[in-house]
């Protein structure tokens, strides 16, 4: 019975996805008009921080013909903003500051949980679900790009896939 319910849910979801995909076919003209927009920020968000520091995530799309590089970020909610990467080393998670993030021409760069992120340090106010964080991202080519990231519930976002496993190196 339970199994059947899951399957039914899967089927309904599947149909919804197929319907969405079919709809997307009609949008080519609209998508094309964004081509010259250069750098575009997709789905920025900040999980509700449990302390006075947090992280912002997003996908950076580069629609331009040359590669670009995110070199810094700033926000009025944080005393300092840094670009960071979390990675797995010998079974341990290690976070380190990075100098920049390279976005290939006609490509994208993902900032996601358990990977690259914009770290918001020394938050000057409590951020709650529903708040908005204004970020200014500075790119080598595109210059300053402003983006507004909604604060979402901590548990409301899933981590990235493909992070190393505890088996590696042990």
């Amino acid at each position, binding site marked *: 019975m339970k199994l059947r319910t899951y399957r039914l849910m899967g089927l309904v979801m599947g149909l919804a996805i197929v319907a969405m995909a079919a709809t997307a*076919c009609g949008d080519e003209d609209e998508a094309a008009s964004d081509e010259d927009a250069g750098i575009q920020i997709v789905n920025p968000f900040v999980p509700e921080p449990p*302390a006075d520091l947090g992280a912002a995530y997003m996908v950076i799309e580069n629609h331009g013909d040359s590669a670009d590089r995110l070199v810094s970020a700033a926000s009025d909610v944080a005393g300092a903003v840094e670009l960071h990467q979390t990675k797995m080393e010998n079974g341990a998670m290690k976070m380190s500051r990075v100098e920049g993030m390279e976005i290939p021409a006609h490509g994208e760069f993902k900032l996601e949980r*358990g990977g690259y992120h914009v770290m918001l340090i020394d938050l000057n106010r409590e951020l709650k679900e529903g708040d908005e964080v204004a970020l200014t991202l500075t790119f080598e080519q595109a210059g300053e790009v402003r983006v507004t990231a909604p604060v979402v519930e901590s548990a409301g976002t899933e981590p990235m896939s493909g992070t190393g496993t505890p088996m590696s190196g042990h």
Partner: protein
Amino acid sequence: MYLVLRMARRLPTSARASRRVALLAVLGAALLLAACGSEDGGADGTVIGDTGADDRSPAMVAESQPRPSFVLTDTSGARFDFQAETEGFLTLLYFGYTNCPDVCPVHFGNIAGALDQIPSSLRGRVKVIFVGVDPPRDSAERLRSWLDHFDATFIGLTGTDDELRAAQVAAGVPPAQREPADENGRYAVSHAAWVTAYTAGDEETWWFPLGIRQATWASTIEELAQIGRTDS
């Protein structure tokens, strides 16, 4: 640490089946998209939290390990004997730090969300322990407020560097290390990435790597909470 893992032995078949169906649906949609010749591959369809169908699975350690023995200090300032205080409960143990902006909140957000989904009769059989491995910054007060953000019943522990090292060695995780400080005196701490779960009577030991979806957390916790306990 030299253990062989059996992946997802206990993953409920219903979850597996639904994942398979969802995967087929996604494949179908991808084919349809490809068929209409969309140039940029539908990248605009990205949604928050969408990490594709290949999310990670918890793994059972082939030979169960008894829960480790160590003593630390809890957020009320009392000494906390891990083995004595958690015996008889499904126990989730994690070593992290409160200035961890990324992976610690991912794990704890998902655990808190998962515990809200399981029956309350089982919820009472679960203890969640967060050990703060950065004593200069993981004060009792800060640990408490960090954990309260997720669930007020979560237990926060910390101790001296020596005590913390002993606890991590006992638990079989690589001891955390403070990274060199930057010009502003800020530093990161590298620490074990996974949550270890011990069933009530140490019948089974499980590892939860980073990258587990909340629904998988919930179904696995619900199943593990029923091991080693008889309702009286």
